[in-house]
């Protein structure tokens, strides 16, 4: 039971809040359904029980899954290795671009186990070893790990400390043994290392970087212990080393020169031929090194494939005696004959994907080729030795929203008629993973959701005829039966079967997954933009995908080489009476990752998931400012700022322009140049004057700038208040009826700077050379309201800004612990508004508009506390009217989300709070913030690879919706002060009914009694 001491004051303060709340609710009471009315009546009774409320949120174990859902993903697959022995589970081992190594069930696509490596620990390769380990090489050849195949337990880990960055290869030879111990070869950091497969101990090491050899390929000579190491010295010299795999000794070394020079794009063909491109990329060089003798031939590419233009690329595939060359719009499959001649076997469209060759019976190789035809996908498995033979030719229908096939991996099995069958694991453009077998998709994984970039929400349609999707409307009898079951549960009368039925009923409640808007605002659509440039709509009730859209305008085209998605904004939010209009969202993207690349805008209908309109490539987009104005169709005005700080207004209509020009004198923005340490403020100057401008472009006017001294301060973090946050009351009642006015402004910016040494990770700076400075800056005037220095503290800083306070998390080097600090700011100029009279007619009365230019007198209060964990993200709960007390939501390094009440981070906490302070809810001072296990929102789950947590207010004032994303997705709803305005999920209606019946019976009985007694009195 955490902190029972302060429970009573909480209930007192809540009571006042509820009064205010119900008053504001009464106005729209006519529309409320009876359930809410009953809730309001009963809220009085519930208040009596709020005194047992705690500061945390907590959950019973049987409530898991009632309001939360959790989805596990792995990300875009880059390597896959099948493990399909006769007996036991069939599985496929994959590694992904999200640094996940996972073992998937080949039958259903479920995750057997997965390990999420560190953020800088990207996987270079995985291999199966000896039927019991998965060997992974990661960190550019820096770390070699072995994982136990069945359960994913790490068996050993070896660090290969190379001397210089290089390519990384992993080689698991099947027959290379030293004293019955199999060897694993890894190349990374310029060194070739042999490692024992039993314990990971390094057996020998050969450094090639010392000989300035740039190693391109490492191959094992088939059937022998000899390892070939091939590489270049400079651009023209080719070197080949033959190494004894058992001890690492060089058997033979030969060099050869090619005057044309090699590019770094090479490929091994058939164990003894290396294919490379020359420096210009127009000549194909084949290096035959059979038996250690080097023979170099060259051939112009145009001789092979005819006319082509643009870049040529060798695809990193192992295809037996073939290789794939990507030129222009085509992939040419070129085979190398035994005499070393090159022949084009086939030319396919570049939208095709080709698998590695798979040896399936003696000396035979199978290669899969997948290409698109209309909206179908053609999967062909060909014999590698004889390209004209098709082993398999299947047509699979794949959802068009999955885009093109990116990668394919094949695996063979023996059919019942002893012929060879093939299954293919296909990675699509939207990062989803499909298993295709016998012309059908066996399973699909939506792994695009592992790389969420941005999230917004929209309301669902209002319930009306023809809109309701719910099929299972319960009748009264079922409803009552359910509640009787629940009552049995509470009274401990239920049998185990009943318990199961109760749990299933609770989890399956059709109420939460309906496709219509609910009164409490719990059901919404989460619109999620992923790295694969795909937009998903997820239902908040159960997390299912309502629609998905691969955004057409954000796909690769000639005008746009490497498009990336950036953010998603609510664009049009129709008023709730406009039932025929659908809300829409704006997706902002860029042609390239660099900031000055042209921008792309796409407008997507949030109900149907279709692209309404798109524009682009347009001007570059540095930031997007949603303005607080809407036009007559309720499209929100957005100002897009480009790298020259010019503003571009959207939507591009006369009406929007009219609205904007009226308000343009009040529009301010700022830019942060992190590299230079400058923050600049701007306002609108007038229409653009450069040549190709239009009416919707506006020139900036420099207003102010804040320059941080570059040698001592580097900008490391900033935070602003959320634009959609609602603040209920400006005043805060202090002890002894004292009043403080919160300084509330949306134009505040929190900036943290650190000394250059302290701006990197922990472990690089000493307390003496580290300092952290935090600023509160008004973004309209550039005025610095507050500045504070933390000596001996350093990055990383995570901050959250809400109402009149900022909370930030940083590392204190002196104590060697994390700290969280709070700054609260109050407006002193209005402090004399102590009574009603002054409030109405005083100098700073209610009617005086607050302006950033009025130079308010600011008082700041601050306090710091220790906090145990490293933090990945911090956010704060948001509620519809801002009445409910706030909780911080902290994404910890352990990938959990912790809820921490704001009152723990109150600057007024003192060692011995006075009686009045205690009544108000001030918690006695402790040096560190409590970590209460029951207040982990994610309870016994992990949101692997957590990146951010977002909060969305529900319509019910007490409740916030919380969405945490990383490699996994997690959604829940949270009531920071408990659900004081509605009945909880497990409220027993049956018990209520029973009580009423009992009361009525009691009334009848007593009435009869009294009648009888009266009669007797009269006869006496």
């Amino acid at each position: 039971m955490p902190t029972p001491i302060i429970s009573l004051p909480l209930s007192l303060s809540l009571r006042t809040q509820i009064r205010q709340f119900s008053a504001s609710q009464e106005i729209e009471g006519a529309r409320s359904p009876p359930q809410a009315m009953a809730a309001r009546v009963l809220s009085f009774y519930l208040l009596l029980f709020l005194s047992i409320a705690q500061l945390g949120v907590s959950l019973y174990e049987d409530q898991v899954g009632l309001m939360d859902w959790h989805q596990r993903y792995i990300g875009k697959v880059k390597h896959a290795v099948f493990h399909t022995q006769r007996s036991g589970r069939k599985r496929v081992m994959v590694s992904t671009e999200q640094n996940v190594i996972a073992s998937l069930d080949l039958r259903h696509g479920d995750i057997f186990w997965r390990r999420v490596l560190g953020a800088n620990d990207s996987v270079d390769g995985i291999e199966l070893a000896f039927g019991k380990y998965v060997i992974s090489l990661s960190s550019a050849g820096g770390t070699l790990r072995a994982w136990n195949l069945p359960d994913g337990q790490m068996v050993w880990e070896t660090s290969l400390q190379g001397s210089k960055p290089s390519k990384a290869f992993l080689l698991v030879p099947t027959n290379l043994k030293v004293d019955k111990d199999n060897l694993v070869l890894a190349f990374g950091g310029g060194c070739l290392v042999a490692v024992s497969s039993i314990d990971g101990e390094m057996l020998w090491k050969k450094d090639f970087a010392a000989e300035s050899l740039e190693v391109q390929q490492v191959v094992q000579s088939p059937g022998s212990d000899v390892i070939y190491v091939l590489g270049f010295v400079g651009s023209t010299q080719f070197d080949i080393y033959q190494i004894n795999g058992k001890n690492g000794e060089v058997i033979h070394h030969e060099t050869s020169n090619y005057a044309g020079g090699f590019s770094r794009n090479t490929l091994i063909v058939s164990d003894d031929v290396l294919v490379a491109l020359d420096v210009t990329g127009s000549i194909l060089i084949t290096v035959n090194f059979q038996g250690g003798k080097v023979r170099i031939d060259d051939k112009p590419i145009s001789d092979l494939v005819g006319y082509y233009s643009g870049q040529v690329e060798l695809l990193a595939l192992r295809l037996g005696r073939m290789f794939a060359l990507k030129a222009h719009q085509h992939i040419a499959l070129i085979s190398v004959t035994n005499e070393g001649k090159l022949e084009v076997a086939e030319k396919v469209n570049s939208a095709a994907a080709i698998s590695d060759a798979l040896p399936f019976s003696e000396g035979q190789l199978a290669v899969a080729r997948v290409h698109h035809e209309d909206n179908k996908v053609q999967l062909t498995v060909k014999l590698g030795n004889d390209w004209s033979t098709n082993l398999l030719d299947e047509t699979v229908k794949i959802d068009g929203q999955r885009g093109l096939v990116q990668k394919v991996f094949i695996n063979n099995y023996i059919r019942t008629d002893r012929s060879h069958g093939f299954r293919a694991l296909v990675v699509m453009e939207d990062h989803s993973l499909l298993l295709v077998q016998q012309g059908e998709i066996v399973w699909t994984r939506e792994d695009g959701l592992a790389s969420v970039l941005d999230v917004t929400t929209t309301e669902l349609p209002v319930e009306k005829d023809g809109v309701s999707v719910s099929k299972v409307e319960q009748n009264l009898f079922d409803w009552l039966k359910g509640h009787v079951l629940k009552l049995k549960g509470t009274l401990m009368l239920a049998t185990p079967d009943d318990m199961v039925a109760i749990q299933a009923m609770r989890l399956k409640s059709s109420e939460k997954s309906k496709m219509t808007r609910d009164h409490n605002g719990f059901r919404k659509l989460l619109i999620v933009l992923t790295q694969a440039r795909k937009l998903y709509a997820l239902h908040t009730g159960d997390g299912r995908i309502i629609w998905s859209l691969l955004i057409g305008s954000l796909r690769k085209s000639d005008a746009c080489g490497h498009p990336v998605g950036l953010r998603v904004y609510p664009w049009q939010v129709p008023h709730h009476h406009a039932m025929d209009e659908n809300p829409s969202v704006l997706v902002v993207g860029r042609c390239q990752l660099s900031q000055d690349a042209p921008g792309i805008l796409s407008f997507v209908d949030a109900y149907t998931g279709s692209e309404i309109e798109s524009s682009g490539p347009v001007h570059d987009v540095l930031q997007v400012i949603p303005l607080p104005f809407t036009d007559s169709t309720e499209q929100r005005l957005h100002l897009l700022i480009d790298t020259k700080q010019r503003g571009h207004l959207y939507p591009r209509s006369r009406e929007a322009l009219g609205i904007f020009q009226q308000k343009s004198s009040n529009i301010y923005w700022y830019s942060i140049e992190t590299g230079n340490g400058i923050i600049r403020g701007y306002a609108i100057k007038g229409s653009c004057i450069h040549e190709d401008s239009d009416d919707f472009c506006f020139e900036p006017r420099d207003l102010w700038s804040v320059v941080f001294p570059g040698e001592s301060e580097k900008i490391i973090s900033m935070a602003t208040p959320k634009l959609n946050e609602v603040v209920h009351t400006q005043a805060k009642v202090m002890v002894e009826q004292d009043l403080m006015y919160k300084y509330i402004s949306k134009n505040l910016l929190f900036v943290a700077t650190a000394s250059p040494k302290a701006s990197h990770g922990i472990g690089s700076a000493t307390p003496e050379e580290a300092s952290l400075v935090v600023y509160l800056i008004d973004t309209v005037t550039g005025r610095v309201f507050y500045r504070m220095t933390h000596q001996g503290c350093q990055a990383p800083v995570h901050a959250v800004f809400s109402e009149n306070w900022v909370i930030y998390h940083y590392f204190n080097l002196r104590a060697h612990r994390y700290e969280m600090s709070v700054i609260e700011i109050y407006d002193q100029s209005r402090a004399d508004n102590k009574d009603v009279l002054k409030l109405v007619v005083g100098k700073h009365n209610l009617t005086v508009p607050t302006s950033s230019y009025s130079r308010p007198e600011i008082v700041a209060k601050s306090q710091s506390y220790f906090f145990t964990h490293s933090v990945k993200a911090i956010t704060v709960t948001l509620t519809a009217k801002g009445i409910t007390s706030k909780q911080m939501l902290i994404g910890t390094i352990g990938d959990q989300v912790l809820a921490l009440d704001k009152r723990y981070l109150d600057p007024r906490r003192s060692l011995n709070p006075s009686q009045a302070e205690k009544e108000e809810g001030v918690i006695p001072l402790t040096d560190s913030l409590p970590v209460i296990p029951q207040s982990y929102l994610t309870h016994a789950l992990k949101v692997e690879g957590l990146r951010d947590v977002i909060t969305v207010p529900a319509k019910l004032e007490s409740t916030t919706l919380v969405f945490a994303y990383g490699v996994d997705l997690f959604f829940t709803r949270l009531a920071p002060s408990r659900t004081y305005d509605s009945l909880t999920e497990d409220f027993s209606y049956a018990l209520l009914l029973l009580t009423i019946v009992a009361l009525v019976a009691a009334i009848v009985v007593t009435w009869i009694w009294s009648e009888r007694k009266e009669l007797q009195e009269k006869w006496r």
Partner: protein
Amino acid sequence: MEARIFINAILYGLMCSSILSSAHAAAPADGFTINGRVKIPSAVVGAKGFGLQGKISDVKVILNGGQRATFLRPDGYFSFPDVPAGTHLIEVAALGYLFSPIRVDVSARNPGKVQAALTENRRALNELVLEPLREEQYYEIREPFSIMSIVKSPMGLMMGFMLIVVFLMPKLMENMDPEEIKRAQEEMRSQGVPSLANFLPGAARN
């Protein structure tokens, strides 16, 4: 070249598996190796829990707030190779347990000297053996059914109040002075017996 500094001399029983620790340091160029062990007492494992505690394969060890992460070997050991000299922070992320972050000083002057201390309670560690501060219980425990919980519920209180009115009030009346009752009754009579009829719209005319 590894110089083992601390040698494990302590043997634990079977229940608590044994520990070794360490701090060795290989010193190629600029990096040192931090070796340590996470020990989750087996007495705690599986005592009560959600089936996830004690799974050593899920435990992650994190250096400097996410710069590097590693996993545990079956015997609980972990290592961070190539760590520069300085003061570092090691965190253990294990579902179901709270671990204190550990401050680790890697000294450049005498290679191999590694000092460690828990940051939560400033306890110095002789050897880098990390044990959980406590188990974490993520769920509230449901109170078993009791008659008190019904009585304390809103409905229970309503009933209780009614019962008091029905059964205790007459008792109170009995104990009152009969004179006083008579006076009260007279008073009431003079005002007229309040009855439902009075509240009806038509009643006012009578």
